[in-house]
């Protein structure tokens, strides 16, 4: 009952004209971001973060959250129409969505994607609403040792699920933690690892790193490519109706995608992409027509598109309940909270109940807005693709620079932005993922505070970390994951050597 009364109170605050405008702005920008290939939700949220500075805390967070889940809607449009995913979560949608479009069912595929996103997105918010307060209540008991163990487990899990090489991911995590230690030591007030640069005393702002890694480096990648505009087919409103058979075949994948997406969303890593992939594989396995997958099966659109939306809601749970962002996009949301003086952590829901429930209520409203706007305006959103990258890229560059400057009003930050953009550009070329670096940078502080505070607490007896029930469980799981990864790595190497020997 308490949940319902809190939610009603949240709705009362979320239906004010200002909150509705912030929500609408967020979901529209999110949808456009999703449509534009290259500019992902993380980059867009980083870009728009300065816009939220002048807003009321709740309005700023509502807008940023809207961008996050709105981008999951938009990503499917280009995946279906031009076989080009707007963001990574929609890569899987290309497989059957584009095939449906080739058969003249592109409009129906987009409608199924939008409805699935709505259904699963709403399921995800229900999960978030019920789960986050309980987890936060539990996490209040956490001390520095438990937070250290949680950060370790999160980072180990992250390196296991990114899909890239585990070693490379771990290396990027280490690099992120290294960056987090630059500046004044919070416990002793000693300047460390600043190399005599005065501006580094305040540490490295992770938003700047994210903007460089995901925003500017993406601009450089597009600029270095052919820069041709896409030819987008026109979609008429009457084409948007799925037929009875398509609706019937989509219902279960949508519900399954909603559940799977939410569970995967709780884990660290690129949860939106992983959830859509897992959902696709599951639907193919459960389908009565597995042979249709890859040739335009509607389940191949309904499941993954539902899963990635639900995962966006799931990813908010560790952020709102524990104050730990496990994905790059939710890490940006931390900035959104912090600039408004709202500390993220287990006490957030208790101390800022109004803010929490307003954001939750706005997510319900945002999902309805997305459904209403996405169906009739799908053609309009797709037309964003018609703006030539030659014009768009310089403009994105200027907006990013202006946004980065506005965070601390610092020219030095712009140099950092450029440096991290160049590093991000080469990292992508070398097949290194930028997300683990950003997550490492954010969790690095929790890790260090937990480790040092924890060691003092247990008087240097490191085994106490393993003996305490919560931290011990998490650390043993982390060790098991490391052992599993090492065994898998050695097994894969041996298999490769054996295959090569047989071939020669």
């Amino acid at each position, binding site marked *: 009952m308490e949940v319902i009364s809190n939610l009603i109170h949240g709705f009362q605050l979320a239906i004010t004209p200002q909150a509705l405008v912030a929500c609408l702005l967020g979901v529209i920008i999110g949808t456009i971001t999703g449509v534009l290939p290259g500019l992902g939700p993380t980059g867009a949220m980083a870009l728009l973060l300065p816009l939220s500075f002048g807003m009321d805390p709740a309005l700023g967070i509502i807008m940023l959250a809207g961008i996050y889940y709105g981008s999951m809607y938009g990503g499917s449009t280009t995946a279906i129409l031009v076989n080009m995913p707007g963001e990574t979560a929609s890569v899987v949608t290309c497989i059957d969505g584009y095939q449906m479009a080739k058969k003249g069912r592109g409009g129906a595929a987009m409608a199924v994607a939008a409805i699935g996103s709505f259904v699963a997105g709403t399921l995800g918010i229900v999960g978030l609403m019920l789960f986050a307060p309980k987890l936060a209540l539990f996490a209040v008991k956490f001390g520095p040792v438990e937070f250290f163990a949680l950060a370790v487990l999160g980072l180990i899990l992250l390196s296991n699920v990114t899909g890239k090489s585990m070693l490379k991911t771990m290396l990027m995590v280490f690099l992120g933690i290294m960056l987090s230690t630059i500046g004044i030591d919070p416990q002793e007030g000693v300047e460390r690892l600043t190399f005599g640069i005065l501006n580094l005393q305040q540490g490295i702002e992770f938003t700047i790193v994210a903007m460089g890694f995901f925003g500017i480096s993406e601009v450089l990648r597009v600029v270095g490519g052919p820069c041709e505009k896409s030819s987008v087919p026109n979609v008429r409103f009457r084409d948007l109706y799925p037929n009875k058979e398509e609706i019937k075949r989509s219902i279960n994948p949508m519900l399954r995608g909603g559940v799977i997406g939410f569970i995967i969303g709780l884990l660290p890593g690129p949860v939106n992409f992983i959830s859509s992939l897992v959902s696709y594989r599951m639907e193919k396995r459960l389908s009565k027509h597995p042979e249709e997958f890859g040739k335009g099966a509607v389940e191949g659109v309904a499941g993954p598109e539902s899963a990635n939306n639900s995962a966006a809601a799931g990813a908010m749970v560790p952020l709102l309940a524990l104050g730990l962002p496990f994905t790059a996009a939710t890490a940006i949301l931390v900035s959104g909270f912090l600039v408004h003086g709202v500390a993220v952590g287990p006490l957030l829901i208790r101390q800022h109940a109004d803010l929490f429930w307003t954001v939750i209520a706005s997510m319900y409203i945002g999902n309805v807005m997305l459904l209403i706007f996405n169906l009739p305006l799908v053609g309009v959103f797709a037309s964003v693709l018609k703006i030539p990258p030659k014009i768009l890229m*310089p403009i994105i560059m*200027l907006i990013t620079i202006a946004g980065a400057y506005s965070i601390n009003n610092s020219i030095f930050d712009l140099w950092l932005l450029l440096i991290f953009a160049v590093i991000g550009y080469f990292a992508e070329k070398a097949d290194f993922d930028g997300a683990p670096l950003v997550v490492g940078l954010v969790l690095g502080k929790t890790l260090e505070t937990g480790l040092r505070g924890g060691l*003092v607490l247990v008087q240097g007896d490191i085994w106490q970390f393993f003996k305490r029930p919560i931290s011990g469980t998490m650390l043993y799981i982390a060790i098991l994951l490391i052992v599993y990864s090492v065994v898998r790595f050695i097994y894969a190497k041996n298999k490769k050597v054996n295959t090569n020997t047989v071939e020669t």
Partner: protein
Amino acid sequence: MQEIYFTGFILLVSIIYTFNALTLRIGNTHAPGPGFLPLGIGLGAIIMALIVLVNSILEMKKERINEGANQKQDITEPFNAKRVILFVLGVAVYIAIMETAGFLIASFCLMFYLFRVMGIGGWAKQIIYALLSSGIAYIIFALWLNVPFPQGFLR
């Protein structure tokens, strides 16, 4: 090859970082100092970077042998390195002159330069686009959001 260069870069950064971490008070497990985590993380990064580096070199050698045997075709996508370098240089100059020239003038120059690099229309079109984009950015960030950009000559 890019993988090797990039890992080599991270290795170099990790070594410099670890040497600097050694200058800090490390402490012990009873009272960890400011250098406690940096030293551990730095050493971990060096070991990790070395493993990735060795792994990449071995992979590359194998690939070269296989390529020699199979005579694979080059399937890399068209790439305009000149444009990327010109973009980075343009932004670097922009940041360097922003304090003196001010946000508005520097942004106009940057946008005009970037549109030129991208080869959009003639001079007139590039000037109009640069004026519009820098002007709108100024209105949004400086006038609407009150971001105190450097004024430069316009002070």
